[in-house]
């Protein structure tokens, strides 16, 4: 096990831009839910999402929004870590579910300019930051924690070429095709994201981006927000959309092993909690199994109740919110959770107001994606 300091953070979501604003608005229980801002609403049964309200003209979508949010988050994190705007030679690992597929859609139907080089984020990162060691991973909803695992592997390498600093990021914005197909599989159109609630109707997407700067050692770091203890990744090899509690539980146990923690050490769980039918039960079953007698120990929350499902960005948004929660001893609530599903009965959800004045040391972060690709990370606070 090797512990790596997190020395820079940046984030943007429907609920706020910048880590401070995002964290405060989540602690206040403020939701980013609104009527669809960039699509023709007459084409859909569902009418709401959790979008970043940054289009130049209301109601008119523009290409390149995913790249824009990513550059914002990476710029925040790089500045926070004192790296400046020249990121040449520094690995930048981007996890995403949908790449720039929204720009492809606008090209296909509405004739906006687009080339195949615009599908991934390398060109945008090169133009803004001169970054040239860039990698776009399209790993569904666990993409940014998968990227985090690979970033930690780079920092564990030895030798002259091994990097001292790695930037890990995640980003996604709504695409019409994914938004539509997701609502299509729900019996009734989802209205809002209510993770783990018996009466939830399903998942809705959100826009978001997050980035962190990881370093090999704490020497000369401007600050340490928290520390990464370990990330485990695996694949259920079970179903293209349905999760497997066994595969998820294996990923959690592997993360605990890698990080050198026991279930009783976990003070906070930042749940994947998408509000998707079946998925919340699978996550709860796996988590209850892994925590065993300690299932009622850690505080738990699902911030997708306010950010919506930010897909590839969601794992890293969870990390940033989790790290800040450990530092401040405050945990944002799960909004809209009234009657937890039976599988989650033992859990101590934070509901209503943010939980405050706690001594919290270790957080577990969950992210699971289509195809049964699971990623679980363990972080500790700055103290």
């Amino acid at each position, binding site marked *: 096990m090797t512990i790596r300091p997190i020395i820079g953070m940046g984030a943007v979501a429907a609920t706020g831009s910048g880590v401070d604003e995002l964290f405060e608005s989540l602690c206040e229980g403020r939701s980013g839910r609104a009527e669809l801002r960039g699509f*023709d609403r*007459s*084409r*859909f*049964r569902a009418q709401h999402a959790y979008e970043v309200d940054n289009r130049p003209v209301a109601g008119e979508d523009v290409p390149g929004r995913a790249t824009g949010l990513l550059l914002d988050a990476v710029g925040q994190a790089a500045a926070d870590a004192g790296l400046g705007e020249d990121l*040449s*030679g520094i690995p930048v690992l981007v996890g995403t*579910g949908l790449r720039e*597929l929204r720009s*492809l*859609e606008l090209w*296909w139907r509405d004739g906006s300019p*687009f080339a*195949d*080089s615009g*599908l*991934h984020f*390398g*060109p945008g990162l*090169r133009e803004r930051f*001169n970054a*040239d*060691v*860039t*990698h*776009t*991973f*399209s*790993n*569904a909803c666990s993409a940014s924690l*998968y990227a985090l*695992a*690979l970033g930690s*592997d780079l920092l*564990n*390498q030895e030798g002259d*070429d091994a990097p001292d600093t790695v930037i890990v990021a995640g980003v996604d914005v709504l695409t*019409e*095709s*994914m938004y*539509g*197909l*997701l609502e*299509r*599989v729900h019996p009734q159109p989802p209205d809002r994201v209510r993770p783990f609630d018996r009466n939830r109707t399903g998942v809705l997407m959100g826009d978001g981006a997050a980035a962190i700067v990881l370093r090999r050692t704490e020497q000369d770091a401007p600050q340490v927000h928290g520390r990464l203890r370990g990330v485990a990744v*695996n*694949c259920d*090899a*079970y*179903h*293209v*959309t349905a999760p497997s509690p066994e*595969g998820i539980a294996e990923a959690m146990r*592997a993360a605990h092993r*890698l990080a050198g923690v026991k279930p009783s050490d976990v003070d906070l769980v930042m749940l994947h909690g998408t509000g998707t039918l079946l998925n919340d039960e699978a996550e709860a079953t796996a988590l209850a199994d892994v925590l065993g007698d300690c299932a009622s120990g850690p505080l738990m929350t699902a911030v997708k109740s306010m950010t919506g499902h930010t897909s590839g960005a969601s794992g890293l948004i969870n990390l940033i919110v989790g790290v800040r929660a450990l530092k401040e001893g405050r945990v944002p609530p799960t909004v809209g959770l009234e009657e937890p599903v039976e599988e989650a009965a033992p859990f101590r959800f934070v509901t209503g107001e943010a939980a405050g004045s706690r001594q919290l040391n270790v957080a577990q972060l969950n992210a699971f*994606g*289509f*195809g*049964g*690709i699971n990623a679980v990370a363990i972080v500790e606070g700055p103290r």
Partner: protein
Amino acid sequence: MTSQSTDTTVVVSGAAVLLPGADTVRALAEGPAEGGTPVEPAEHVGRKGLRYKDRATQLGYCLTAAALKDAGLLGDDGLTCAPESVGVVASSNFGNLDTVARALDTIRDETVTATSPMDLPNASSNVIASSAAIRYGLRGPNLMVCNGETSGLDAMHWATTMIAAGRAERVLVLGVEPDNDVVRKLLGGARAVDGGAALVLESRPAAERRSATVRAVLGPYTRGAGTPVPGSARRWELPEHLGRASGAHGVLQCAAAVGWFDAGERGPVHAVAGTAADDARAGLLLMAPEAA
């Protein structure tokens, strides 16, 4: 985590190619002839389970089965090694563009109610990597690299990185690009290769433990904006008539290197991807088995 070893050398222990005009690494290395017929997935893996799968996923099934068999990891009764010991890293840029465009057309022209729920998994770009894992029971780390022109060589790099980190003893690397109307429009009328290649990368100790035949040894990888240093190593050129290889390009070059080594060539091979017009260039050196 798998057992740690001080030997972090990664080797190639299996390879497969499927392109119009080439279905072996030897044929690829020699250069596929013009006028080859399109790959028919059902002829390779049977019809079962192909319905509702996009072209890239079907091609991925064929390449996965062929590479795992070539490496001695897939028999008539399934995998011959622990499912957790095999990861997947797939590379494709155009993989699911047809599904995205078709679903969007349906939504715009008829509303969301007319879309097919069967398209949902294919709307996620990682469907190639996860579908290969599901069909063949590969439970190690599962990664989809969509990184532009360098994507195939980047996939080789991340597979190597995960093996060196002890996340998996072996990783199937898959590079595939489908050809269809959406892709052709995006490429200004040019065609894509409509096929690809797959390699099994393995830690040398893991390959030795199961007495696998080493077909190539991986050397250093680089990615960056700089001009690659011209070396004496041989390079494989993609024949123009095959079309754009994009995310499959790097993996095809590595498979061609295996073809040369299988044929007795002993000089190193340099795989390169990306040009000054792209966001970066990548390079990977491959050496003949004796270099190990």
